[in-house]
């Protein structure tokens, strides 16, 4: 268990950032992941007094504070309708309602966990991460680089008239996923598929060669599945072998492409 010497509910982001520069300090999101860790923490920095538990929506974007819980995210009507249910489909399998009432968006994104449904989901959207010191960076850049001991203030999702789908495979309900797959059809960019729990951190794959074309057919979707299986690096762990994961990449990307074909029903299962 993590031992904590001092608990500090900060009054500003500057205070949080300063306290966090010491290696012995820790920022506290929902604490769900850190609770599982061992070690000594000199100062636990609580961000819950800064009003960062709000989701703001306007015509162009969603601003999601770092302390927004996963449950609040999955219940947000604006996000649900923008993603056609993909946000709910991504989050509803994570442990249970009680867990998601505490786990935060900030802790989930900052953690960059390989298994993360949350990271997979937001990588499919036009997402930016606002860091207190480093400023605003696109999520793919944030996921790829180390931003040290900065504070994640909020994430921002730019709205585009597009469509999203989310799928994951689990061996049992509420377990970590064996593979996650989010996909997006957005104007001005090729079809995008994101794969997480490979078991490594989520990565993006664009249909740069135009395999899917303008009108996605069953045959094109099948070809895209093969292409993705050849391109996405997978590995094995206790939840599934490398071969099984690669098979899943093929199947899920084919299904994702088909479900985003014009005139098709989105496969986000939470609708059923």
């Amino acid at each position, binding site marked *: *268990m*993590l*031992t*904590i*010497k*001092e*608990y500090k*509910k900060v009054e500003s982001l500057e205070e949080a950032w300063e306290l966090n520069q010491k290696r012995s300090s820790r920022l*506290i999101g929902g*604490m*769900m992941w850190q*609770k*599982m860790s061992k070690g000594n*923490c000199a100062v*636990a920095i*609580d961000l*819950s007094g800064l009003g960062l538990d709000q989701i703001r929506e306007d015509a162009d974007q969603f601003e999601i504070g770092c302390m927004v819980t996963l*449950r609040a995210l999955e219940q947000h009507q604006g996000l649900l309708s923008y993603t056609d249910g993909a946000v709910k489909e991504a989050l*509803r399998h994570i*442990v*249970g*309602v*009680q*867990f998601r*009432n*505490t786990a935060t968006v900030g802790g989930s994104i900052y953690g960059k966990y390989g298994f993360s449904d949350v990271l997979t989901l937001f990588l499919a959207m036009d997402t930016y991460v606002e860091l207190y010191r480093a400023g605003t960076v696109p999520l793919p850049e944030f996921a790829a680089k180390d931003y040290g001991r900065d504070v994640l203030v909020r994430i921002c999702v730019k709205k585009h008239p597009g469509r999203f789908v989310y799928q994951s495979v689990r061996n049992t*309900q*509420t377990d970590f996923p064996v593979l996650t797959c989010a996909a997006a059809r957005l104007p001005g960019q090729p079809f995008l598929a994101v794969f997480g729990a490979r078991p490594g951190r989520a990565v993006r794959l664009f249909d740069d060669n135009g395999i899917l074309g303008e009108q996605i057919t069953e045959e094109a979707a099948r070809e895209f599945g093969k292409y993705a299986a050849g391109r996405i690096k997978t590995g094995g762990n206790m939840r599934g072998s490398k071969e099984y994961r690669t098979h899943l990449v093929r199947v899920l990307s084919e299904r994702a492409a088909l479900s985003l074909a014009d005139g098709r029903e989105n496969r986000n299962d939470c609708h*059923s």
Partner: protein
Amino acid sequence: MTVTVELNSRKVTRNIEPDMLLIDFVRAEGCYSVKRGCETSNCGLCTVFLDGLPVLSCSVLAARADNRKVTTLEGLLEEAKEFGAFLADEGAEQCGFCNPGFLMNAIALFREKPEPTEQEIREYLAGNLCRCSGYEGQLRAILKFLEWKKERGHK
């Protein structure tokens, strides 16, 4: 550090260690319905309400409950009794260890969604594990309880 928590409608001010977990805080106040199962946020046995929302007290710091409302099964006895009778009638439990956490989360479900579908029930209670049963008895109990409440409401 000092915290003030409204625990089951009673204001409690205590000096606590910064790393004290909420489960230990409420148990120290005599709320023994709140139990340790997995301690890894997986089983739902330690469920309490924090400002009305179900959370896992094994993974929440007591410090986070400062100036907030915490409710345990001890504070919901009347509400739990009605539904508990249906669980018993359906033989939904064997050892009963999962019962307090299950009751808490079922009450949270009834408050949030008074008329849930079967799929919504299964999904809401997915974080409450039971090692003895196959969940069918619990599901029957919930459906019959909701039916009874509906009928009672019509009378």
